[in-house]
């Protein structure tokens, strides 16, 4: 019952978030800020993680290929497939749910307990829409970009590590990257990133917006937000994979 209540409250909250904005100019300014906050500030993290995961995938694949009959280009192929299908969409979104999600929940939660949200309401601003809609739109724009970026960096990480360690040569790796490439996988993954973007921004925003109490409750809301948005991403991943593949 409690879960149903929470889902109902979330749906009503989202209805408020996507109601017609009063002053579009103010929202546009916020959107630019959010693109910087959510996107640019996450690029370095995504780059580092993707590079090292790509590198490790290459090494692990190479060390598990004990049979001499397995072609070496499979290293490039498996690195590409893993990055393309799962890591750069789902795992990067899970990481962003931790980084961005906790940030959003604590930011909006702090605004709630310090009456900043009430101040917005007294000025006639739909606070839910003003605070949350730009974050969701910014994440919808930036998450597919981060996905493409992550795939690219991951593959480069794999190539450089493969060459440095000598487990694969350049031609084999590049051949593996081209081997049996299905462009639909990119479409499928980008669709997933769009859904995940809504999840890792709206669920933390919902928890932050409904904080009651003080700093302790903001911390609890932040933790709950990360846990619930991570679970929602995993469940959605399963559902979308079933539908789209």
């Amino acid at each position: 019952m409690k879960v149903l209540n929470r889902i109902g409250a979330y749906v009503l909250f989202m209805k408020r978030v996507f109601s017609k904005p009063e002053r579009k100019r103010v929202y546009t300014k916020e959107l630019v800020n959010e693109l910087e906050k959510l996107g640019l500030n996450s690029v370095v993290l995504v780059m580092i993680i993707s590079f090292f995961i790509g590198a490790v995938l290459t090494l692990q694949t190479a060390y598990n290929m004990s049979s001499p009959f397995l072609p070496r280009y499979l290293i490039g192929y498996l690195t590409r497939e893993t990055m393309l299908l799962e890591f750069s969409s789902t795992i990067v979104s899970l990481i962003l749910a931790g980084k961005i999600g906790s940030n959003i929940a604590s930011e909006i939660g702090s605004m709630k307990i310090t009456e900043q949200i009430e101040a917005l309401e007294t000025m006639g601003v739909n606070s839910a829409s003003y605070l949350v809609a730009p974050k969701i739109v910014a994440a919808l724009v930036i998450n597919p970009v981060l996905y493409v970026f992550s795939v690219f960096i991951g593959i480069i990480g794999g190539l450089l590590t493969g060459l440095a360690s000598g487990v694969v040569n350049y031609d084999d790796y590049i051949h593996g990257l081209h081997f049996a490439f299905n462009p639909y996988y990119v479409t499928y993954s980008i669709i997933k990133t769009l859904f995940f973007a809504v999840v890792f921004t709206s669920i933390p925003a919902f928890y932050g917006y409904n904080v009651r109490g003080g700093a302790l409750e903001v911390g609890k809301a932040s933790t709950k937000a990360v846990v619930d948005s991570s679970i929602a991403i995993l469940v959605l991943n399963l559902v979308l994979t079933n539908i789209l593949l």
Partner: protein
Amino acid sequence: MIRVEGICKSFEHKQVLTDIDAVFEPGKVNLIIGKSGSGKTVLLKSIIGLHTVDSGHIYYDDRDVTGMDKRQMKDIRKELGVVFQGGALFDSLTVLENVIFPLNLFSSMSEKEKVERALFCLNRVNLNNVESLSPAEISGGMKKRVAIARAIVLQPKYLFCDEPNSGLDPLTSLVIDNLLSELTHEYNMTTIINTHDMNSVFEIGEKIIFIHEGRKEWEGSNVDVMHSDNAALNEFLFTSKLNRMARERFNKRS
């Protein structure tokens, strides 16, 4: 003028306000006083429209706001300024951007005019050279003054302050009280201040409404307070020896 009639408000079966009638006059500092938990903040937030009342009516100059939809209420919102207990300044904005914020929402001024108006208001609350600072970089008293500047930037007809002196030293409290009183008379605003600061009651309370256990127990001015025989009010105001002495001295003199 703001008039409330028969206001009742409850939260989850707990009655917080019962049948409150009051008139808040323009050009005067109207105080709502009462113990913590007496319902004064709920009353103030109900008048502002942050709480929906269970029954009763709230009139802003004969405009009944209790039945208004969001669009109708928006016109009223342009006419009111609110100073929250902690200032409620937006952390992500500078002091100047905080003061400009209502102008971005409601005015058609150019950017230059907005900056000029915001600087004028900051200057009016005696704040200079702080416009580029963030709220985290200024003191509690300065935050309250920035909040007042933001509240008056649209030249409101109604000004609401929720415990503007909380957390401030006596000297800064006095500065804030005097500032609110001056601005009320200067702009002929209907100012409603929610407080339990005794200095505010005695210094600037031109009209005082005392809320006790969710009901209006007493109303009068800061002079009437000194002669009141209401037991609950006297217990609230004159529990401290200092306040009792002040009343005795005042009564002897008059």
